[in-house]
């Protein structure tokens, strides 16, 4: 078997993977990126509406800072996030966006003078200042206190990914395209690289690396209706799970985006609502203010999606050819705005629906969109269980999103994580721990194991079809592990998935075509996806509360007393059909923002006894500072975090009006 040696192996060529690769390479470590597809085609390109960073340049953003971004993100997560990591994230996001600005992203800029905007269904005129002219502007998004989503029209992810990829090319980082990691090589405690399949020739090869970083995105394709690209099958998370050592965090935390077009499931950006678009029902009634008087269409995604499904269930959906849906109305934004700031939306509507959103309503319904769960890492991106294994971006759970991610925080996370984890990988490689001793016998053993697995799939005579079983898995997840969950349905899903896992061992391939063999690919990915699906379904069954996007109709309240805990899933043995679940408590006594009401959604929750204690402690810590202390001092008194960041990312972020 061919063996390729490198210092750093990054699996995944999207924003997180490439930024981590650039970071490691800059520090002098040879780095190779593996990608299922050409890197510029990664799913990062699909992010439309914006990247959250508290620059505070435009009028709607004035007064914004890390504190507000922090609080929005923690509330968005329904207190499931790791608050230290959220602080690291919100502190680094402005740096990430400024770095990308220097590298070439054509961020939309503030234009001085008067502008017409649409707020709450009404036209208003605002005036941008001379001082802000030419700085990066931002738009409104759900669940945020300020206009914080910086954007490039509605092709934000595309522009970011192209700039990032071009910088990676400039840095001379090789991207081995059409390569799929099938297994991590490890000796039980140390990750040493991966066994990889060439998706053109079908050949297996090994990459031996001192550090391995998984950045393969989410696992949305375990669902039938998903906005995700077809490559988002979670293979990075799956191979980490299959080590039996690394754990996956909060796999049951799945986000459903309110506005996917019907029936294709293609996303139209939250920017539609951020810019003033409305949700209407069959009667043309704007229903969100009835449910969410505070934030209306711009509550967090979990809340809006739930309200939409609730409204459909109450009989207000539009009967369409493909089932029921609701309407997204952006007509009120006007032709000029749509053609300038929502042009991808216009294109998608034109090609897939044959409509023009300038004149027509867009049929939408919530669809699976984002995986909050992923490979559990520490705050620097390393697996606590398997040394030398790192993860970044959507495939990781380090964990800034908890049980619901805010719009615009995903692309922000990819780049911030790439910056922090890339540096952390370099530190690791520079340390004695980064030295690797690996025998070729171990590499060969893992190669042999994968070769046998593939041969086993090919030789089966059980008559099962990989495509058919994939469809059944996806139907099960969309039907039983969706927006509204219930113990009975979840148990049914767990049973069905166990049965599918047994059936997946009896797949017969109809094609033995040399080369890539797409049927074989579908078969081996299915076996891994079923494990991720089971972690999701089983985790959801065990979590007897409602938190963020995880809503249990039979346990409708958030229960901090029992469930302020992160689910950790490991796969105990290759033949097992259920994960082992473990739980990691979130310590309220170290939180800067103790649990409370999010400002939208249900007010009712079961409090943890520590919440009151921590609140008193916080008041006591702030009292001696008086009113004159600045926000940095107050924050420092509650939850210091700067020491967790790499030294070059610790400095304060300058904003308009700050002394430089």
């Amino acid at each position: 078997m061919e063996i390729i040696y490198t210092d750093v192996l990054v699996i995944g060529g999207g924003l997180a993977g490439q930024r981590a690769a650039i970071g490691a390479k800059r520090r002098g470590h040879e780095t190779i990126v593996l990608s299922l597809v050409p890197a510029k085609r990664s799913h990062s390109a699909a992010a439309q509406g914006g990247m959250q960073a508290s620059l505070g340049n435009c009028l709607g953003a004035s007064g914004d800072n890390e504190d507000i971004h922090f609080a929005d993100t923690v509330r968005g997560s329904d207190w499931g996030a790791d608050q230290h990591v959220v602080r690291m994230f919100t502190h680094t996001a402005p740096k990430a966006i400024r770095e990308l600005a220097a590298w070439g992203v054509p961020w939309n800029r503030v234009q001085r003078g008067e502008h017409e905007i649409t707020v709450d269904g009404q036209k208003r005129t605002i005036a941008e200042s001379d001082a802000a002219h030419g700085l990066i502007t931002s738009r409104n998004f759900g669940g945020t206190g300020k206009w914080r989503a910086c954007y490039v029209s509605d092709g934000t992810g595309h522009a970011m990914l192209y700039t990032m990829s071009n910088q990676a090319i400039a840095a001379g980082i090789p991207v081995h395209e059409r390569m799929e990691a099938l297994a991590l090589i490890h000796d039980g405690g140390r990750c040493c690289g991966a066994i990889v399949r060439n998706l053109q020739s079908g050949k297996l090869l090994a990459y031996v690396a001192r550090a391995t970083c998984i950045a393969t995105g989410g696992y949305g394709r375990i669902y039938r209706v998903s906005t995700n690209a077809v490559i988002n099958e979670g293979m990075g998370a799956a191979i980490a799970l299959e080590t039996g050592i690394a754990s996956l965090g909060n796999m049951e935390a799945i986000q459903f985006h309110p506005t996917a077009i019907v029936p294709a499931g293609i996303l139209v950006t939250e920017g539609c609502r951020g810019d003033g678009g409305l949700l209407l029902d069959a009667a043309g009634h704007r229903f969100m203010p009835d449910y969410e008087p505070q934030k209306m269409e711009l509550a967090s995604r979990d809340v809006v999606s739930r309200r939409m499904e609730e409204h459909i269930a109450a009989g207000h959906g539009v009967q369409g050819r493909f089932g029921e849906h609701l309407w997204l109305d952006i007509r009120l934004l006007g032709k000029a705005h749509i053609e300038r700031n929502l042009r991808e939306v216009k294109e998608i509507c034109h090609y897939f629906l044959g409509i023009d959103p300038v004149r027509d309503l867009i049929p939408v319904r919530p669809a699976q969109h984002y995986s909050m769960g992923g490979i559990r890492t520490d705050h620097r991106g390393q697996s606590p269980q398997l040394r030398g294994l790192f993860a970044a971006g959507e495939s990781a759970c380090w964990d800034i999103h908890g049980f619901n991610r805010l719009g615009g925080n995903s692309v922000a996370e990819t780049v911030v994580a790439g910056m922090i984890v890339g540096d952390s990988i370099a530190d690791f490689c520079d340390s004695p721990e980064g030295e690797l001793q690996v025998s070729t016998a171990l590499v060969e053993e893992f190669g042999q194991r994968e070769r046998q697995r593939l041969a086993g799939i090919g030789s089966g005579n059980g008559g099962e079809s990989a495509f058919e079983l994939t469809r059944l898995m996806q139907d099960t997840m969309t039907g039983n592990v969706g927006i509204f969950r219930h113990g009975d349905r979840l148990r049914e899903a767990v049973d069905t998935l166990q049965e599918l896992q047994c059936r997946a061992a009896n797949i017969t391939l109809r094609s033995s075509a040399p080369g890539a063999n797409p049927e074989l690919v579908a078969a081996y990915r299915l076996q891994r996806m079923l494990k991720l699906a089971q972690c999701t379904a089983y985790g959801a069954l065990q979590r007897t509360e409602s938190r963020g996007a995880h809503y249990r109709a039979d346990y409708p309240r958030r229960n901090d007393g029992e469930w302020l805990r992160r689910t950790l899933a490991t796969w105990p043995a290759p033949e097992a059909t259920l994960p082992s679940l473990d739980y990691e408590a979130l310590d309220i006594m170290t939180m800067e923002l103790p649990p409370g009401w999010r400002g939208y959604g249900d007010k009712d929750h079961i409090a943890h006894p520590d919440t009151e204690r921590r609140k008193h402690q916080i008041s006591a810590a702030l009292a001696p500072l008086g009113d004159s202390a600045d926000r940095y001092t107050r924050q420092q008194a509650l939850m210091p975090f700067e020491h967790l960041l790499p030294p070059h990312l610790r400095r304060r972020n300058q904003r308009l009006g700050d002394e430089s």
Partner: protein
Amino acid sequence: MNRIPVQEVRRSLQIRILRHNPHDPASKPCLQTFELEEAESMTLFIALNEIRQTMDPSLQFDFVCRAGICGSCGMIINGRPGLACRTLTRNLPECITLAPLPGFELIGDLSVNTGKWMRGMSERLETWVHQRDLDRADIDQLEERMEPDLAERIYELERCIECGCCIAACGTARMREDFVGAVGLNQIMRFRLDPRDERSDADFYALVGDESGVFGCMTLLGCEDYCPKDLPLAAQIAFLRRRMVATGA
């Protein structure tokens, strides 16, 4: 009654696909026809997956986003290059012929190696912002200002998704393997427009001031006709050619 009757009977589509697997020594290029019933709102993405799942599991093609934004699924659809994922079958006749994009290395059937080609183009034209000390940019201070209109004009050219349709539609690219094509020339224009890139016209001339670059274009305009993102390619190339003539003279 000059009204087109509502289509109620579902059409039966004949999809002819140019097949070849270069990894199989026994494979010879041939057209294979698949018949399937058209569904409501069916795209070529849906049709091709149905063929693979129910008729021929060895069929190779590339889709990623299936939303018209990633550029993976360029192919020749009834003689014209286009993105398969956003092509609705209802806009096509019953007989649909699909072939891989010419001009790129064939991986198998409808899958071609646009990634390798585009990476080569990027390396050759150095499609990134050239600025001294970029890795030491101060990211703590306010960002450099940019005129809002200029940012939008850069994005207009940045919208290219490197799908390869312009190469497949290009006469020069048929004749010259080293032609950088509209995709490459557009990138030059994009970085030339960008004040963050310190390269001069003389630097760009060194990259594209010959027949493999801007002087290879025969103004057949196939690139602009088939660009799925409607980029103003012909105007960009014409402008660049004038600038390069002035620079080279």
